């Protein structure tokens, strides 16, 4: 027993010493992988930036940027995409928040089914989705096995097509939106919070506005920003539905211009970074709250 006790600490000390060595010395492998990873992301971005600054021969300048921004089509398509993104985010929130809430509260058995549905966009490519939508909604939709008309053809009207693309975007953003909202609700134990609020006399509207939404704000924001990024860069749905959004514009521009698409690509990178900065800023205090619970 005594010999065991005296010999036991030796390997433990050795491993501690080894750990201190790697910490104090140079952790070669960790840094190597980190640098390789960073290069993988930074190099293409740097190349794009570098290229976008060389529109004029032998000088570094912002000409590609001014040229790209000067094109009225840029402003129009980008504005249109932002509008679609905002509508998509709002409808997604209206759809996802009550659904996730109700599943947490009353229908935990439905979670697997809903999670499966929200993951479908990862399995079914956007091209299949858009062909399916066009096939179904370009002719009138009838109640199955009857002649009762439910919907006029959607693709023939502007409003209908816009509704279709927003619906498509909601589907594409669903994995991110649902998961972040559901995780947010689990973190704050929304079910017990609801019961606490109920016992204090609150009705459903009050609970939603004062308890649920403020406590999943961070989750909503991250879901919303990911949805935003998807919508602004999306090409397939917009092209096949024939809508003048930013994605197809960038794609077309790339086919007959060289520098401007690079400038615009870099600009969208910056916008995404700005968005992530906003998340960090807003989640600072909120994250702690959720973590402490």
């Amino acid at each position, binding site marked *: 027993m005594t010999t065991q006790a005296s010999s036991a600490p030796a390997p433990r000390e050795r491993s501690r010493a080894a750990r201190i060595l790697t910490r104090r010395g140079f952790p070669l492998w960790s840094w190597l992988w980190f640098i390789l990873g960073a290069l993988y992301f930074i190099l293409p971005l740097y190349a794009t930036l570098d290229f976008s600054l060389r529109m004029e021969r032998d000088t570094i300048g912002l000409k590609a940027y001014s040229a790209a921004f000067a094109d009225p089509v840029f402003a129009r398509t980008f504005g249109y995409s932002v509008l679609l993104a905002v509508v998509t985010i709002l409808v997604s929130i209206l759809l996802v928040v009550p659904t996730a809430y109700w599943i947490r509260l009353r229908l935990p058995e439905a979670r697997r089914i809903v999670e499966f549905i929200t993951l479908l966009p990862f399995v079914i490519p956007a091209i299949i989705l858009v062909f399916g939508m066009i096939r179904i909604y370009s002719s009138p939709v009838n109640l199955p096995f009857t002649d009762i008309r439910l919907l006029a053809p959607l693709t023939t009207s502007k409003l209908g097509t816009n509704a279709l693309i927003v619906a498509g975007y909601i589907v594409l953003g669903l994995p991110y939106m649902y998961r972040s909202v559901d995780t947010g609700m689990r973190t*704050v*134990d929304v079910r*017990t*919070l609801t*019961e*606490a*609020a*109920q*016992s*204090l*006399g*609150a*009705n459903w509207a*009050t609970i939603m506005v*004062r*308890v649920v939404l*403020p*406590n999943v*704000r961070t989750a909503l924001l991250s879901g919303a920003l990911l949805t935003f990024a998807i919508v602004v860069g999306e090409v397939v749905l917009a092209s096949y539905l024939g809508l003048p959004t930013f994605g197809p514009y960038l794609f077309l521009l790339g086919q007959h211009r060289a520098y401007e698409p690079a400038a615009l690509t870099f600009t969208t990178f910056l916008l995404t970074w700005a968005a992530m900065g906003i998340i960090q800023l807003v989640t600072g205090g*909120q994250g*702690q*709250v*959720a*973590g*402490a*619970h």
Partner: protein
Amino acid sequence: MAFLSIQHATKSFGQAAAVEDFNLEIERGELVSFLGPSGCGKTTTLRMVAGFEVPTSGRIELNGVNITNQAPNQRNVGMVFQAYALFPNMTVADNVGFGLKVGKKPKDEIQKRTAEMLGLIRMPQLGDRYPYQLSGGQQQRVALARALAIQPQVLLLDEPLSALDAKIRVELRSEIRRIQQTLGITTIYVTHDQEEALSISDRIVVMSAGRIEQVGTPFDIYNFPKTAFVASFVGTLNQLRCTVVDAGQGKLSFDGQTFTATAPIRAAAGASVIAALRPEELHFGQFDGENQLTGKVEAVTFLGGIVRIRMVLGQSQITLDALNERKLTLPKVGDMQLVSFPPHACWVMADS
């Protein structure tokens, strides 16, 4: 007519009955504990009073009003949860004032009442803090203040101390009792911790498998358990399988030794029964008018205030608790010892 009356309440989830035919009358200002192991139906019963569960059958009346099917937000019942359930996005003061704000009370009244509640839980300086800046014990105090701020008719506490460490638990339970008695508020306290239930309750409802086993004061529950379950669940109990020698005289035979229990015994001579004894009623040595049994010391555990000694008597094990004192001589493992107890300390339970 009792202030809170639960009549024949039954709750089933699918085929499984969580609570069966629960009947209880609680007087105004009383603190009643629901005590039992996990899954005995105590929390389900509490949630029926809160309105989070609707009874499958039965009726619940509060102050003469039938609230069986009333929504939880219509009942004016304060609830404290095991997980605190403070709103993370609100300060302590906003949490405490939430129920009043929902009830559309004037601003100055909310402020006054919030300050009053924070004083009651002895945290008057911490109104501006957020829940994540508080310890578990402080969070639970705030949860208590929040539940009390709305001046509820009944206060419901669902294992409020389970998530806290032992020292805070003891402190907070006397704090809860003090506040409950100060306000004279009718309270139901759910716990699986018998010491907690014994120390703070006016009455205890011991539950098992969805049914009430016994209702009584802590003293009665501990000293006069009516069922084998209550006897073994509350406190430590020695159980000896004996044969009845003389039912009228209370004479029993155990492992070839004869002793006297509380008479009369409701069993015929020759029947096999269980004799029950609390460890603190047993002592070493020989005393006049007391029963004696001989056994072998198997383990001695020093617990500070008491010394717990496990002994083997024939085929059975018994536990003996001796009060600690500086002159105490601890028995040694393997010693043969004479154990004494008065006849009234031993009672016979129906063989289950």
